[in-house]
């Protein structure tokens, strides 16, 4: 499994906030992404968008409620089409399956189109170790592969790289110095990749959708690299989670309206690739073998939890990242695992273990903007709350991760707020205690946490001379 750094969210977020270059980049680019989405919705009309969202959501719900049926249907169809379906319980099993295919057929060069599941599995280092050269062919993925980093964003993996960064990277890693503009850089990458594309004996892809009734794998790309990966190499291996299943081609129409608009504001992507099995005798090209690897890797745990299940409705468009004010500040790497942003804060804790990712469910002001933009209306804030409750109250002690201090505060607050008398008494004591802290009627500094974490940048109003309840009792309640 990909290296888990979710434990370091606190530190990583502080580091990201102090990174001036990253901050200016995030400030400049995030709004543009969401602007494109809004325009696309305006063009479609918001009413129609709502209809599509409802439909998409209903299809996802139906498919997951009948997952066994559709998985079996998909299995039958892919097999009938001449493909092979493999099931992997976890990242390790998935790697072994892919490795075994490469090894037994003596494959040496694998071209990859973008796959987040392959990131979950840390597939590239594994392939390298066994002597297979993996080459990312999506430009963004190629850049981060050269930089030996992980994706910063679900659909824009290298968005944290400036063109100067990429220029330097291309000079160091592929010996193409002095590239000034983006066209030149894309051209250089194209030259290097073209040679790999035509010589590869293995293609590796993810999946955007799996159509059960026809056994079809659907890829949406803008660079055409997905088409290369699925048609040139003699062996094609597609790796995906079971949540990508949809029942029919008709359903695909709904998602093809939702995904590009939510992701990039496009009406449709430049390429939409359908793969229904290996090359047939009358096909001009296509792989001799087609393997579909369906990976669980924690998804069953999401499926089994009625409150978290809808996180599997996600179509990985990245719209929640683009709108999230927290993501805007900390970026993608701070989240510490494959999936960043609001949806990552929900799925990562379940996939890597809540005890390792206790900070993620709290890394949100619960503003709800993610739910507003989600093309499937996934209720992310509710799921974050659910995870917070698990952290605070779970009967399973491995899941319960709450500091003693926090617990005492909660109990103290409950006690205080259970008694108006105690509240009034505390108010009077608080009035005395705050006196030395007052400067021009405001509290500027409280030297101990958690208050110090407030007053480091904001003033705090003092307790009022009389609480409202007293004003009411003495005067206001008697007036009319």
């Amino acid at each position, binding site marked *: 499994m990909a290296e888990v750094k979710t434990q370091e969210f606190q530190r990583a*977020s502080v580091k990201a*906030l102090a990174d001036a270059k990253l*901050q200016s980049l995030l400030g400049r680019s995030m709004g543009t992404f969401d602007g494109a989405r809004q325009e696309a919705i305006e063009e479609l009309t918001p009413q129609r968008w709502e209809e599509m969202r409802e439909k998409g959501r209903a299809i996802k719900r139906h498919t997951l409620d009948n997952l066994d049926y559709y998985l079996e249907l998909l299995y039958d169809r892919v097999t009938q089409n001449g493909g092979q379906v493999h099931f992997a319980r976890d990242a390790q099993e998935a790697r072994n399956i892919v490795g075994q295919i490469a090894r037994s057929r003596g494959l040496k060069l694998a071209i990859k189109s973008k796959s987040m599941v392959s990131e979950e599995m840390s597939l590239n280092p594994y392939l390298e170790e066994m002597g297979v050269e993996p080459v990312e062919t999506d430009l963004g993925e190629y850049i981060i592969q050269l930089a030996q980093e992980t994706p910063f964003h679900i659909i824009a993996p290298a968005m944290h790289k400036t063109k100067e960064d990429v220029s330097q990277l291309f000079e160091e890693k592929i010996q193409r110095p002095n590239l000034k503009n983006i066209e030149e850089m894309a051209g250089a990458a194209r030259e290097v990749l073209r040679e790999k594309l035509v010589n590869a004996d293995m293609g590796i892809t993810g999946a955007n959708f799996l159509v059960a009734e026809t056994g079809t794998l659907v890829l949406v790309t803008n660079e055409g690299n997905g088409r290369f990966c699925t048609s040139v190499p003699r062996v094609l291996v597609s790796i995906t989670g079971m949540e990508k299943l949809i029942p029919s081609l008709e359903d695909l129409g709904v998602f093809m309206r939702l995904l590009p608009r939510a992701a990039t504001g496009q009406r449709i992507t430049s390429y939409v690739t359908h793969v229904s099995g290996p090359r047939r005798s009358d096909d001009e090209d296509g792989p001799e073998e087609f393997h579909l690897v369906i990976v669980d890797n924690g998804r069953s745990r999401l499926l089994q939890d009625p409150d978290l299940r809808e996180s599997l409705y996600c179509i990985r468009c990245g719209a929640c990242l683009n709108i999230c*004010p*927290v993501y*805007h*500040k900390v970026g993608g790497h701070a989240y510490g695992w494959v999936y960043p942003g609001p949806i990552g804060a929900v799925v990562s804790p379940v996939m890597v273990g809540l005890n390792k990712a206790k900070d993620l*469910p*709290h890394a*949100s*002001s*619960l*503003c*709800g*903007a993610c*739910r507003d933009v989600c093309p499937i209306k996934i209720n992310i804030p509710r799921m974050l*709350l659910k995870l*917070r*409750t*698990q*952290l*605070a*109250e779970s009967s399973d002690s491995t899941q319960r991760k*709450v500091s003693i201090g*926090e617990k005492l505060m*909660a*109990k103290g*607050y*409950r006690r205080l*707020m*259970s*008694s*108006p008398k105690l*509240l009034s008494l505390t*108010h009077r004591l608080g009035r005395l205690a705050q006196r030395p802290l007052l400067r021009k009627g405001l509290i*500027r500094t409280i030297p101990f*946490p*958690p*208050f110090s*974490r*407030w007053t*480091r*940048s*904001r*003033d*705090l*109003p*003092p*307790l*009022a001379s*009389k*609480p*409202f*309840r007293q*004003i*009411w*009792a003495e005067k*206001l*309640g008697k*007036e009319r």
Partner: protein
Amino acid sequence: MSQSPQIKASLFATCLVDQLFPEVGESVVRVLRRQGVEVDFPPDQTCCGQPLFNSGFRKDAIHLGRRVLKSFAHSQYVVVPSGSCAAMMKVFYPELFDDDPELGPQAKALSDKVYEFSQFLVKVLDVTDVGASYQGKVTYHPACHLLRELGVSKEPEALLRGVTGLDYVELPEGATCCGFGGTFSVKYPGISEGMLNDKLDNVVKTGAQVLTACDSSCLMHIGGALTRRGIDVKAVHLAQLLTGEG
């Protein structure tokens, strides 16, 4: 006022208004009384439990929620000068008490009676002009829960436009969170401040003298930074503007 039977509303003051901003509660009472509403204040009330609920302490939130259900059981309407506390009672209580055969129906009944202050004025009383006047440029920050849990977006603006002399100016990127988020502001002060800075920049851009909102929590957050930075913009609850006390 009209001859129709008098509307009775119980005020849920919220703990912030009770302890820190009682003047907001006084304004709410004045505005409602001017509209002919009979206002009462159930003295047992404290906190709706939202801070606990949002921190994951569901059982403790239920404990406080029970008190609220009891205190407001006989109210005709419950008016709350906070979008997030109103959302707690209107949206989250029915979920929280869903599997309780006795309290579940009570939570639903309360939910139907709860209105955020601006929502109550516009939706229940059907007024947008409360007879207030204010000279100056005012901008409005839509609080997240008010906007997204309660769906209140037009009401506060309509009320502001109803204030004589008030120059309303829209806040750029208004619907973006100010970074308060309850305990979020102290759990992740750095992220919270980053969000707050963006909000302050937008507030300053408007050139308004007053920033208003329907939630004292957001106002405490944004206002606390305005005074800290010495920015000459006052953070004032909508109810105060509607009594002409900005």
